[in-house]
């Protein structure tokens, strides 16, 4: 049976795919444009002298924040899909995951380029010596196989193993929040960590709750 939609299709015609009344193609376009807003904002700020006295620090932190937001949006997909009874939301999940990876790449690049100036030795030393850097680095590494196997082809090839592999994203969340916590812990400035950590805990907790309730 086709999913319920507000405008009933004529008999014999397939139901148009909609998310909360928005045609799927339009929803995807909107979501894509929304995902580009942080990037557009940085470019705008860069052109209008709005990045502040330390543009490198601003972009490093801002890209980290937006990576985390994209990750939370991705993790919110399933709970929202179930709670709002919008099964087609799944069609936006890959895009939000790839946006997470995109902003994570930019975040890593701010560090590799502007902070370390591509000096491999010093990057390696940094990753080994500092849990703060190491956690961020590991969080990024967990995203790589997920981005690579995000295509239809890989989903087919991996079959049921695809879902198991993509549960890695829960670890990404844990590493990311620890990375963020260490970043702020030294200055005891944990308000944002609690906000991001709280949302993450709800999103992961919902999955645990649901699993045991269903068993």
């Amino acid at each position, binding site marked *: 049976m086709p999913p319920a939609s507000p405008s009933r299709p004529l008999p014999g015609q397939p139901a148009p795919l909609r998310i909360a009344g928005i045609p799927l193609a339009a929803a995807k376009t909107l979501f894509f444009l929304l995902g580009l807003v942080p990037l557009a904002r940085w470019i705008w700020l860069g052109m209008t002298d709005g990045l*502040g006295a*330390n543009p490198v620090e601003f972009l490093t932190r801002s890209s980290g924040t937006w990576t985390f937001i994209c990750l939370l949006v991705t993790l919110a997909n399933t709970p929202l899909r179930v709670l709002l009874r919008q099964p087609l939301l799944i069609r936006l999940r890959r895009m939000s995951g790839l946006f997470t990876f995109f902003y994570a790449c930019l975040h890593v690049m701010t560090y590799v380029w502007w902070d370390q100036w591509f000096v491999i030795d010093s990057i390696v030393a940094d990753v080994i010596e500092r849990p703060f850097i190491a956690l961020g680095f590991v969080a990024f590494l967990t995203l790589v196989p997920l981005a690579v196997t995000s295509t239809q082809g890989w989903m087919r090839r991996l079959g049921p193993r695809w879902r198991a592999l993509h549960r890695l994203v829960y670890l990404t969340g844990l590493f990311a929040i620890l990375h963020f916590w260490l970043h702020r812990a*030294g200055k005891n400035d944990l308000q944002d960590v609690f906000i991001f950590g709280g949302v993450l805990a709800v999103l992961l907790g919902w999955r645990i709750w649901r699993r045991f309730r269903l068993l």
Partner: protein
Amino acid sequence: MLIRRASDILPSEITPQSVYAQRRRLMLQAAASAAALGLTGWANRQAFAADAGPSGAALPGARNDEFLVMDKPASWRDITQYNNFYEFGTGKTDPARYAGAMSTRPWTLDVEGEVLRPRTFDIDDLLKLAPMEERIYRLRCVEGWSMVIPWVGYSLEKLISKVEPTGNARYVEFVTAVQPDAMPGVRGRVIDWPYVEALRLDEARHPLTMLVFGLYGHVLPNQNGAPLRLAVPWKYGFKSGKSLVKIRFTEKQPQTSWVKTAAHEYGFYANVNPNVDHPRWSQATERRIGEDGFFKPKRQTLMFNGYADQVASLYQGMDLKANY
């Protein structure tokens, strides 16, 4: 299935005809006020950018050639818009946004503890205590950035000699202002307020240690620590307390705020040292604000922030890794 009948709708739920008739106008008004709000912000921003030069009351100082760094000073805008002053919030732009509410007159400085002549100084007395000098100092933040700043003030020693420390005085503690109504940051618990810093007496008496009242020939803006602050150029910036209200001479080493908050990250001495890393990042390099942008690697950090010739003797025989 429950189907609402027309009679279920209460009269109070229905939009009155008069309001309904105005619906387009109301929406336009809402849109217009939203746009106006946005534009006001934009206009202020433009006005601000155009007005980026030094401002405020003049406070000139005679150039002291002994204390000039030949590097290019940071712009007034960068110095006054990029601050760590957690009393006003932990964001770098929070101090510029909120510090205007701090009251800097009347202002007094209590000097007490192990001194022969404890005294409360009025800010106007302090401004006249010694001739104002302009000195261009490097400022290296523990976070890995640095600025070159033209301060106006005089050596702290000028004040210390007036109050005559006793033989017991070995440390000097600096207590900074708490004005809860003006300081959104002190309502949080990031630090156990007030912010307290301290120096060894010989460090405090070093001619480089400066009591600062002005910046770029003007009175200090509030976000930079008005009406008076410290500048200790060979130590990380957090050692230079802002908006001082009390100086206390002690026999025992005072508990300083960052040591209390995170002793493994911030030490009592906090001398700039490229060889002793912060647990979360290397201190070997720094980014000079206004100079090192996207296309230049960070520059090497200098031992004692480049003031080794003047201050290295203070730490002779001391393990600087243990006493970070």
